[in-house]
């Protein structure tokens, strides 16, 4: 099971521009030094300041695109998150901030839910995923048309009530890191992992109860961003999905290499 293939879909809240999408999503292959492929999604606080930058900083940092990627332990995550905070606060773009913007950065800052995942031992005896979560971004581990594991295990009607996430302010960081949850699960050939931020994850959790075969067939078949956006628009129109930024990162595990390359027009 040496091959992983991922795709990152995203859509801003209806009515917002592309640049106003305040989630984050990143994926990285194994680093050749023992770290497996990594994937992350984050969801920046709508009412924060610089939330898109914060969410992006977190996912890029976790997969090793900005600074050193953290180990999946509480201590390592704490050090890493503090470094991310420094980078966010020292962003040179802030030189042009208005008074209102400076006030909000200083008094409110930002906050993001976070879900990071690493695949380990893919060619060894016990391939598995291991993940860390703060808040209600969710990983669904799917085999066939059945959810093998959901992490964190949030029921569809309890999304939005989890206050956990990573803040830009140093004060609450240690406490939040202490609330991080960790999990892992064994992988098999053909398994799919879906990492989704809350609005999409909530819909998935509810749709899985209604008609899981249709749900997972649809999600496994997504191969074009407009197909993803059409799905999101349709579910929003049906009022099944909250109008929020949405992100879906799909990872497919396969012992066979890819046969096709899809380039979208």
């Amino acid at each position, binding site marked *: 099971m040496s091959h992983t293939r991922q795709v990152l879909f995203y859509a801003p*809240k*209806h*009515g*917002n521009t592309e640049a*106003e999408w*305040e989630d984050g999503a990143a994926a990285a292959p194994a680093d050749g030094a023992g770290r497996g492929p990594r994937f992350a999604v984050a*969801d*920046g*606080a*709508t*009412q*924060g*300041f*610089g*939330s*898109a*930058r914060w969410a992006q900083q977190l996912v890029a940092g976790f997969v090793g695109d900005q600074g050193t990627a953290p180990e999946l332990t509480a201590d390592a995550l704490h050090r890493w998150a503090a470094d991310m905070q420094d980078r966010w606060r020292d962003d040179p*773009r*802030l030189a*042009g*901030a*208005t008074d*209102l*913007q400076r*006030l*909000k950065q200083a008094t*409110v800052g930002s*906050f*993001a*839910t976070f879900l990071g995942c690493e695949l380990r031992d893919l060619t060894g005896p016990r391939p598995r995923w291991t993940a860390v979560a703060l*808040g*209600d971004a969710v990983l669904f581990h799917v085999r066939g048309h059945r959810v093998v594991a959901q992490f964190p295990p949030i029921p569809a009607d309890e999304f*939005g009530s989890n206050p956990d*996430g990573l803040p830009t302010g140093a004060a609450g960081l240690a406490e939040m890191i202490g609330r991080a949850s960790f999990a892992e699960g064994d992988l098999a050939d053909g398994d799919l992992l879906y990492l989704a*931020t*809350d*609005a999409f994850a909530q819909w998935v959790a509810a749709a899985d109860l209604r008609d899981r075969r249709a749900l997972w067939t649809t999600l496994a078949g997504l191969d074009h961003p407009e197909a993803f956006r059409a799905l999101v628009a349709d579910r929003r129109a049906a*009022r*099944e999905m*909250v*109008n*929020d930024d949405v992100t879906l990162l799909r990872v497919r595990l396969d012992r066979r290499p890819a046969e096709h390359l899809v380039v979208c027009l």
Partner: protein
Amino acid sequence: MENYRQSVSRADPGCVVILLDRSDSMKLAWGRTGASLADGAALAVNNILLDMCIKATTEVNAPVRHYFDVGIFSYGARVGEAGEGVESAFGGALAGRGLVPLPELAEHPMAVREEPSIDLMPVSARMPVWVDPVHGHRTPMCQAIAVAGAHVFDWAAAHPDSFPPIVVNITDGMVTDSPYDGATLQDWARRLTSIETNDGATLFFNVFLSPFEVTEIVFPSDPGGLPPPGPDLFALSSPLPRPMVDNARVDGYDVRPGARGLAFNVGRSTLLRVLQIGTRVPDRVR
């Protein structure tokens, strides 16, 4: 899916309207603040407008987002023309305007000046001001609903998928123009709350200010025990929808089932908290 779930976005912005009593009795001193009810109400309104602008400020090099259209309508003394009546309470470049998009509001305060702390702390801060304290004449509350209602009606028709309009009435007195145009205050409130979007009916909240330091009653679920005009205002006020119940509970209020959007005999800082709770529409937060 239940109502009052829609979050704000630029395609589906929210609408907040404040009806501001500028009757003569607003000149009374507000408890031990040393300032009048009119001063305190204007301060709270300016604070909530600043709050809304700050919430819609999201990134460097980006304008304040158009998350709300905002209207402030005063009733009682008029500034634009002499005498009693209803008018837009905005001053400066926005004078006479009905509903104003938030980015425009942020751009055009009538002044930026030193203002006292709303919670009576001995500090002041420079802050933008959109509304001045004014008082005089009687309390034409029905007319205020009639005028604001026309704006709300048109707004709801133009934004059918938005969170319903939120109308907050800040008053210290009894209505003096009921019946107005053949309809009582209760009729006007019914007319106002019959304006709907796909997400529910217009919300009508009432805040009653008292110059005396008496027990505050916030979001009551029962009109029993409320002194006049409490029971009448209770009947006029919309039930608090779920997201605002959640807001209020987060802020420490014991909100019972059936609670109404009414705050009675409140002080200055409570007025601001109630405005914050009542204008915080459901947000995914993240």
